[in-house]
């Protein structure tokens, strides 16, 4: 009975210790072991070298911060009356001329889009942001998300192009009638439970195409006049939406046992990854017109978009392949043993697990890819960076590049920083089971 005895004694001791009044007040550790002073000593002044580094850095940071605040805020000029930049020029190097941003921000954000219609690209930007936020939330990671994307991208197209005079956007009355019939039919079938969510949504999109433009009376804006942030977001988002499925197919092809398909995929990935994006963009802008039959002409934006899709597809394919390789072989074998076909095995067993494994590197690739859309500047497409660069071409505003690039940089930074933070959180969350 000795063990039981010990237990009781221990319990008794604990009980004694808990008697109020008798227990001493909890003592705080000495100042040198905890608290801000100890923290400073441990993290900033642990050795003479560390102290020297700290002091030097404090000096440099203080000097830089003071200089920056003086330049950016104290001495800055925020507005000038009708393009009189004389005051700004006198302050060159001493104070920032934010007047260039105040004056040109609409141009930088929306390019040459008609001024009265700027609410449309602005709404498009908001739609894009909403789409990203919704896609980022794990509770929305379901099949319906594909429908949401299709719907949102269509709506974006309608907003950007505008309706009533857009060619191909169902101008005929019979098309509008057909849209109405389709919508009613699909809605009825959905209510009766005959079909899923997808078809009524498709019909709704079709109906929107037919009606929204004419009803809201949004004038048609050709692609040549689009510009600024919406172009950057369109290139990145549409690029992603098409490159991602492509990359999955290529990654599967690269691991396929069929030699011809494997060779094709390897060639595609290695060739694209071996050359810079610029050469692909040049190819899109210079060589594409030669590839197509006479009379057939693809818009410049679309050509750049195709180049970006091909480029991103190759890089994403390598990331996806990493996920496919990381999946234990037993998963493949178990699926085979169940008698699943190749596509059942891939769609139900392999991809859901493999993609989950590579979400963080995927997001990192997306960030790189978002930044890379700025390269379309070189072939003269009017994205955010090109708009910023063009804004300072006007003689009155020449020489204020730094201010404009800071403004454009802040916009890029907000998007990329949000994505990178998201990726870090997601990584921590998805790896929670691995942590001890």
């Amino acid at each position, binding site marked *: 009975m000795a063990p039981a005895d010990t237990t009781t004694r221990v319990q008794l001791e604990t009980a004694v210790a808990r008697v109020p009044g008798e227990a001493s007040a909890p003592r705080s550790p000495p100042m040198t072991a905890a608290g801000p002073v100890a923290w400073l000593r441990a993290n900033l002044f642990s050795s003479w070298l560390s102290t020297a580094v700290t002091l030097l*850095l404090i000096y440099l940071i203080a000097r830089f911060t003071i200089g920056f605040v003086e330049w950016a805020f104290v001495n800055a000029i925020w507005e000038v009356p009708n393009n009189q930049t004389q005051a700004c020029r006198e302050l060159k190097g001493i104070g920032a001329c934010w007047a260039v941003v105040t004056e040109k921000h609409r141009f930088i954000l929306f390019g040459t889009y008609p001024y009265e219609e700027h609410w449309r690209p602005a709404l498009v930007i908001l739609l894009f942001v909403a789409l990203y936020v919704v896609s980022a939330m794990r509770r929305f990671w379901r099949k319906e998300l594909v429908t949401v994307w299709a719907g949102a991208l269509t709506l974006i197209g309608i907003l950007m192009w505008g309706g009533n005079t857009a060619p191909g956007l169902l101008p005929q009355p019979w098309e509008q009638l057909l849209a109405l019939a389709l919508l009613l039919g699909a809605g009825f079938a959905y209510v009766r439970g005959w079909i899923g969510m997808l078809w009524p949504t498709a019909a709704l999109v079709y109906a929107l195409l037919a009606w929204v433009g004419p009803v809201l009376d949004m004038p048609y804006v050709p692609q040549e006049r689009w510009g600024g942030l919406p172009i950057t977001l369109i290139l990145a988002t549409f690029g992603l939406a098409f490159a991602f499925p492509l990359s999955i197919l290529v990654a599967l092809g690269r691991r396929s046992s069929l*030699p011809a*398909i494997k060779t094709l995929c390897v060639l595609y990935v290695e060739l694209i990854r071996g*050359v810079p994006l610029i050469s692909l963009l040049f190819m899109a802008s210079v060589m594409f017109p030669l590839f197509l039959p*006479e009379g057939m002409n693809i818009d410049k934006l679309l050509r750049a978009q195709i180049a970006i899709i091909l480029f991103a597809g190759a890089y994403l394919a390598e990331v996806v392949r990493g996920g496919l390789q990381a999946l234990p072989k037993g998963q493949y074998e178990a699926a085979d043993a169940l008698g699943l076909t190749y596509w059942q095995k891939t769609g139900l067993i392999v991809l859901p697990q493999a993609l989950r494994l590579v979400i963080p590197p995927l997001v990192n690739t997306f960030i790189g890819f978002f*930044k890379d859309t700025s390269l379309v500047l070189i072939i003269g497409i009017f994205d955010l960076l090109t708009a910023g660069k063009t804004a300072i071409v006007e003689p009155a505003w020449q020489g204020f590049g730094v201010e404009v690039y800071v403004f454009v940089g802040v916009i890029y930074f907000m998007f990329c920083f949000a994505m990178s933070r998201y990726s870090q959180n997601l990584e921590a969350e998805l790896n929670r089971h691995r942590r001890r």
Partner: protein
Amino acid sequence: MSDATTDDPRHLRAPPRRPIRLSWSDERVRGLVWQVLVVGVVVAIVWWLVRNTAHNLEVRRIATGFGFLGREAGLPIGEHVIDYSPTDTYARALLVGVLNTLKVSVIGIVLATIIGTAIGIARLSRNWLLARLASVYVEVIRDLPLLLQLLFWYTILQGLPGPRQALNPVDGVYLSNRGLKLPWIEWQGAHTAALLALLAGVAGAWLYARWARARQMADGRPRRVWPAAVLLVVGLPLAVWAAMGAPWTVDRPVLRGFNFTGGLTVSPEFFALLVGLVTYTAAFIAEIVRAGILAVNQGQWEAAQALGLRHGQVLRLIVLPQALRVIVPPMTSQYLNLTKNSSLAVAIGYQDIVSIANTTLNQTGQAIEGIAIIMAVYLTISLSISAFMNWYNARIALVER
């Protein structure tokens, strides 16, 4: 184990060959059909594109072929490593472009590796301020497009005062909107000889280190390498230089009229491109180095300290060799990225291969050839770098049983 499996008679026999049935349920037939289908579609698309291209070229009266390479280029190139004048051929102009690309890539890779490693180690520093600063740097630089950064640096360099009011941080160094001017020695035969002696010294030091290591493996006694290494690397070139008369004439940049003469010139385009590439790639390299060091098990540090090794020795002998295995593969792709990103030079007017090929393409109308040249050059560079790094990676890879 392997012997057992090969000796087992059941493994010696090949599985019986099933005859192919002409049916959709035979997986080999399906595979064949799919492959024929996919290859057929790809070939059809390529054939369609080639036919269109041939037709378009005929209609536009563009002659294909690389014959234009022998023609006079007539395009001025500001920076050239080899002799070049606008009367030279396109082939030579393109060669100058390739050399310019290689120049900025090689210098960029060396600087980015040094700075990136320093920042990566700084991010792991016990000094909180230093670590925070390094992580802010990495985060900010990685979240901005490289092209934006290049344009930013170029704008800043263009905004500098002219040569007459040039910034003069250190005596003999001038920074103006014409670029960076540095003092440089007048190059003579003795300098070339000293440079060759330096290379020989490095090779000798390396051989000596190998010999010392081999001896240590044999008798267990460590030998000092550094005195001999210093003698070979520093002493030998100095001795050669002194023996040849020790010529030393400094060529200092001097303001004459509206611009500087003499000295070494770093053009604003090259400088902006180099600064942009190095700061950008250094941020990525810093993350790779940090991840590599963190990947080394804490127990390795503790075991090394328990053996009585000093901090530097722990890093050099225990941690870094293991970290390198994690670092090298992603580092390779960063080097490749830097080389490919150097093509952004075209946006700020540094005449690399893309820029010169683009001008060639505009002047001659040889679009397909121009782009093929760009792609061929980059593919060659990419494949060479990855081949070299694969070799290096195989050399330092963990030797397992």
